[in-house]
C-alpha cells in the first residue's frame, strides 16, 4: 500500500461531496439534511487542506478554518430555523414544507 497522496484526499473529498449531496437531495428529515450539508462543507475543507499541503501554502488552511467557523454559524442558524419551523408546522420533514412556490 503506497503512501497517502493528494489524489487520495481528493477522492475522499469527492466521495464526501457525493454522499453529502445525495443526502441533501434525498433525505426528508431536515436534521439529516443539515448533517449532509456538514459533510459537503467538510469535503470542501479536506479539499482545501489537501491542496494547501500540496502547494505548501497556508492560505488553504486558513480558508478551512473560515469554512469551519462558517459551518458552525450555519448549523446554529439552520437548527434555529428548524426549531421555529417545527413550532409552526409541527414537522421536520422537508417535503411537507412547500411554501416556496408561486
Amino acid at each position, binding site marked *: 500500500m503506497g503512501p497517502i497522496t493528494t489524489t487520495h484526499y481528493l477522492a475522499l473529498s469527492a466521495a464526501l461531496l457525493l454522499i453529502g449531496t445525495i443526502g*441533501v437531495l434525498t433525505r426528508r428529515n431536515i436534521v439529516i439534511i443539515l448533517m449532509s450539508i456538514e459533510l459537503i462543507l467538510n469535503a470542501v475543507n479536506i479539499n482545501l487542506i489537501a491542496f494547501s499541503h500540496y502547494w505548501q501554502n497556508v492560505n488553504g488552511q486558513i480558508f478551512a478554518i473560515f469554512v469551519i467557523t462558517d459551518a458552525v454559524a450555519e448549523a446554529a442558524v439552520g437548527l434555529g430555523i428548524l426549531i421555529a419551523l417545527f413550532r409552526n408546522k409541527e414537522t421536520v420533514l422537508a417535503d411537507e414544507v412547500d411554501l416556496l412556490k408561486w
Partner: protein
Amino acid sequence: MNFLDQIWLIPLFPLVGAVVMLLLGKRLDPQPASEVAIAPGLEHTHDDEHGHGHAHDHSHAHEAHPHDAHMHDHGHEHHHGAALRGLVSLFCPGMVLLSFLFSAGAVAQLSQTAERMHQVIQFTWLAGLPFHMADGRLATFSADWGFLLDPLSAVMILVVTGVGFLIHVYSIGYMGHEGGYYRFFGYLNLFVFFMLMLVLANNYALLFVGWEGVGLCSYLLIGFYFHKKSASDAGIKAFVVNRVGDAGFILGMLLMFAVLGTVKFVDVNQILRSGQFHAETAGFGVLSAMALLLFIGATGKSAQVPLYVWLPDAMEGPTPVSALIHAATMVTAGVYMVARSSALYQLTPQTSTIVAAVGAFTAIFAASIALVQNDIKRVLAYSTVSQLGYMFLALGVGAYWVAIFHLFTHAFFKALLFLCSGSVIHALGGEQDMRRMGALKDKIPVTHWTMWVGSIAIAGIPGFAGFFSKDEILWQAYSSKQGSNALYVIGLLTAGMTAFYMWRLMNMTFYGKSRVAPEVEAHIHESPASMTIPLSALALGSVLAGWIGTPKLWGMSGWFRGFEQWLEPAFASAAIEAAQEGAHDASTEWILMAVSVAFALIGIAVARYCYHIRPEIPGAIEARCGPIHRVLLNKWYVDEFYNFLFVDGFAKGGGRVFGAFDRNVVDGAVNGAGWLTRISSTVSIWWDTWIVDGAVRFTSFLVKLSSYPVRIVQTGRVQAYALFVVVGALAFFGYYIAR
C-alpha cells in the same frame, strides 16, 4: 268729547269683548254635561271617560232639536253657569252698545263738519315697495291702517252697531238654553268688530281685512252647532263659495293698484273724478274689468247669482246669526263696497249694466224659489237674496243712495223678520217647517204683531219702511238713464212675488187651522222680554226708517228727505248725473207708485185667498203644475247643477282626470324611465361582464397560460430546487469536460 278723532275705538269695543270671551270664556264657564255636547272638541281635556260618554248621548238629543233643550227639565245643571251667563249677557251686548253710542256721537259730530268727511290714519299698515304702474309711473304699494267716516260709512256703522246691539240683546234670550254661550257671544262680537273694520276702512286693502274677517265669523257661526253635519257642511259651503268671489275682489284690487297706483278711497275717487279717465261707453276697458272683478267679489259676499247658493244653507246657523250676519249686515257688504266704488262704476256703464241685470235676475229668481219653500227660515233666506238683488239693481242703474237706503230699511225689517221667525221656532221648540205651524196668532201675540209689521214693510205697503226704498228702486229702474222697462217689470213682478210669499208665510204660520204637533202645542209660549223688546224696537224701526227717504214727488223736506241729502257728498257726481234725469213727468211716477202698491196688494190678497180662505187651492195648483212646482221646490236644481258641474265635475271628475293623468302620464313617464334604465343597465351589465371583465380575465388567462411551464417546476420543495442546482452544476461540468 271729540268722537271723530276716536273712531278707532268703535271697532275696538267689540274686539275687546271677543278677545275676552274667546280667550277666557272657556276657563270661566263651568260647563255642565249637556253643554259639553255643544262643544265636545273644546271640553275633552277635563272630561273623564264616563263623562264623555254621557255628553255624547246628549249631543244626539241636541242634534234633533237644537232648540228644545229648555222644554226638558234642565234646571239641575244651570245654577253654576248662571252667574257667568249673566256677566256675558251684560258684557258682550254692552260692548256693542258702547260702540253704538260712540258711533252715534261720531255721526252727530260729523254732521256738524263742513266737508262731511273725516279720516283718521293710525299708521302705515302695509309699507310696500315701489313698483311700476301699468302706465310706467312709479308708485308705492302701500295701505294705511286708517278709518274713514263719511255719510256712507256713517249709515253703515249705525246699522251695524244699532241692529247688532238689538240682536245681541235678543240672543240673550234665544241662546239662553244653548251650550257654548260665551263662544256664541265671542264670535258675535268678533263679527261686529270685523264688520266695523269693513265699513270704517279708508282703503280697499283694509276693507278686505274686514271682508275676510266677517267671512270667517260667518263660517264659525253657521257651523255653530258643529256636531250637526249639515251645519258644518253649510259653513264650509259658505266659506268656499265666498272664496270664489274673494278671488275676484283681490284681482280687482290688484288691478286698481296697477292702474291707479293706490287703493285709498279718497285718492281713488279723486283720480277717477279728475277727468284723467273717460267713461268707457264704447268698449270694455280696464276700468270695466276692474269694476267687474270687484262686482264678482260682491256677488260672493252679497249672495248674487251665480254665487248665492251659500246663503240659504247658511240658515243652519242660530237664528240671531241669520238675522245679523245673513240678512242685516254682512251680506250687504257687497252693496256697500260697490256703492263705495261709485266713482268707478259711473265710468263703466257696461259693468253697471251687468250689475243691474244680475241684480234684477237674482231678485226674481230668488223670489220664485221663495214662493214654494216650506222652511220658514229658508223663505226668509231667499227673500234676503231677492232683496239684495234689488239693491244691486239700484246700484246698476246708478241710484247709489237708493241702494244704501234699501240696505238701511232692509236691515230693520229683515232682521225683524228673522228674529220673529226665531221667536216662532223658539216657541215651537225647534220646529221650522211651516206645514206644521198655523194659528199661532193668539198664542204668541207680540211675535205675531211685530212680524206682521215686518211683512207689511217688506211687501211695500205705503207708510212702512220697505215701501219707500223699494218704490224708489223701481222708479229709478224705470227712469234713470241706465234703467229700462225690462228692469222695471222684473222689479215689479218681484215686488208682487215678495208680497205673496211673505203673506203665504204669515198665513201658514199665524193664521188658519193649527197643524202643530200636539205634544209641541202644549209648550207654546211667548218669548221672554229680552227677545220681544228687540222685536218691538225693530218693528218701530221698520215703520219709521223709511220716512227719512220719502219720494221727491211727495214734496216733503227736511228730515223726510234727509237720507238722500245726507249721502249726497259720498256720491258727489252721482247726484249730478241724477239731476240730469227727471225728464219724466210727475204723473208717470204717481202711476208707477200706484202700480207697485197694487202689485203688493194683489200679492197679499192672492196669498190670503190661497192659504187662508181656500187652503185647498195650493194643493190643487201643485197637482196641476207638478213640474214647475217641483223645479221651484228644488230651487231650480242649481245646487244639484253646481254639485254636478263643480263638485262632481271639476273637483271629483277633475280628480279622476288628474288621477288618470297621474297614472298614465306621470307614472308612465316614471315607469318608462325605469324601464329605460333597466334596459340600459342590462346592456351595461352585458358590456361589463363580457367586455370589461372579459378583457381583464382574458389578460389574466394569458398570464396564467404563459406562466404554466414556469409554474410546474416551482414545487415549493427545497430539495427539488437543490436538485436543480446540482443538475445545473453538473451540466456545466459536463459541458466543460466534454468540450
